[in-house]
């Protein structure tokens, strides 16, 4: 996994930008941000972090899901979650409580894990809708819909299917976790809005190459506040 596989896509990918279909542009900076965010979510689940309600495995990782969408945008946020879950599937004990391996994808919580991918996407899509400057209202809406509703929409049916408990009872049982989710949603919104002022270049959201011509729509937050020194460093111009 040294420079050899890394060198191969370098000569292929930029050529493809001439294709007629609009295509998500993932450059080296994005690869780094996606990989780092996957690792960030992993660290949020490590022990010794936050003793939330004793030792019950309630996880700060859903906070990472919300932040992935809010900061990286819909596509890159979802990809970061795919990468994180791929690492889990490859056997790294990165889920809260030191869980990992393919086993978690056949357990009762499998649907929630898949829901994290969709959840991060929806958070990003709502928070960055129209590529405008972040607003409190849209961030709150995005985190609540994507970070909570979407995740449960995927998680509850799978949980009901795996445990063979009817869906209404499963939903009732899962109400226990909703207060914790609301707390995490509030924290995610505050962090996102703080980060917009404190570190605006954090927001480098989805750009597409190909048809449409919008080859490099830059960070909405950074462009609006004018404090970001471009997103120039480490961003080769296409």
């Amino acid at each position, binding site marked *: 996994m040294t420079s050899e596989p890394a060198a191969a896509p370098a000569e292929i990918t930029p050529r493809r930008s001439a294709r007629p279909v609009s295509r998500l542009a993932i450059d080296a900076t994005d690869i780094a941000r996606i990989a780092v965010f996957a690792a*960030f979510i992993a*660290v949020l689940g490590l022990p010794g972090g936050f003793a939330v309600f004793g030792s019950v495995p309630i996880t700060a990782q859903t906070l990472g899901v919300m932040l992935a969408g809010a900061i990286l945008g819909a596509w890159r946020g979802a990809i970061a979650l795919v990468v994180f879950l791929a690492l889990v599937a490859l056997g790294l004990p990165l889920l809260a409580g030191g869980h990992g*391996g*393919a086993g978690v994808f056949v357990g009762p919580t499998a649907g929630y894990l898949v829901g994290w991918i969709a959840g991060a996407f929806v958070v990003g899509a709502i928070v960055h809708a129209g590529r405008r400057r972040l607003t409190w209202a849209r961030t709150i809406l995005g985190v609540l819909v994507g970070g909570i509703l979407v995740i449960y929409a995927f998680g509850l049916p799978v949980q009901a299917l795996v445990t063979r408990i009817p869906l209404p009872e499963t939903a009732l049982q899962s109400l226990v976790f909703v207060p914790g989710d609301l707390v995490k949603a509030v924290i995610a919104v505050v962090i996102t809005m703080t980060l917009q002022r404190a570190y605006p270049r954090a927001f480098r959201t989805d750009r597409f190459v190909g048809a449409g011509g919008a080859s490099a729509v830059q960070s909405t937050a950074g462009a609006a506040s004018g404090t970001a020194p471009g997103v120039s460093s480490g961003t080769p111009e296409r």
Partner: protein
Amino acid sequence: MLTLYRPGTGWMHRAPAGPKAFVLLVLVLAVSLLPSTYLAAGIAATVTVLGYLVTGLGLRELGRQIVSVRWVIVITLGAQLLFLQTEPAIANTSRVLAAILLAAMLVLTARVADLLDAFERGLQPFARFGVDPARVALVLAVAITTVPVLIRLASGVREAQKARGAGGGLRAFVIPFLVVSLKHADDLGEALTARGVA
């Protein structure tokens, strides 16, 4: 390095990662489809114990795995007993537990690097849909090596807060941790660019 792998030399350890993953997934699927009866629970338990015995992982490893998923057992069984009869409750819980334990055999007997290689090979057929297996493998490898780096950054942030006497709230920790992580991502991006990743 943090991993679930248990070193060993048995035939299960020597088997190639890709086919091993396929066979185990079929086995897990079969167990998952068992009905909710005591007989099925017995079959699931027998298959799991036999699996750990014939692969040389042993009952001690099985016990360790069961302890590591104790919360899944408690929560699943508790909810089942609340909403269902005793027989389906016990059968469902042991079926879920058996599936988790059987799937765990993969990461217990295959190194992350081998699984990553197998994964990259498994992605080859998707190349025609625009998936670039080498690039996917690169992202995964970079993420794996980044986890220990971020653990170090996180403890740095925590120590700095302790030194200043700052509180240990989640928000107070995550904002600075997020900023140093994103700065690390920028450095990493430049390093990748310098090595020819576009």
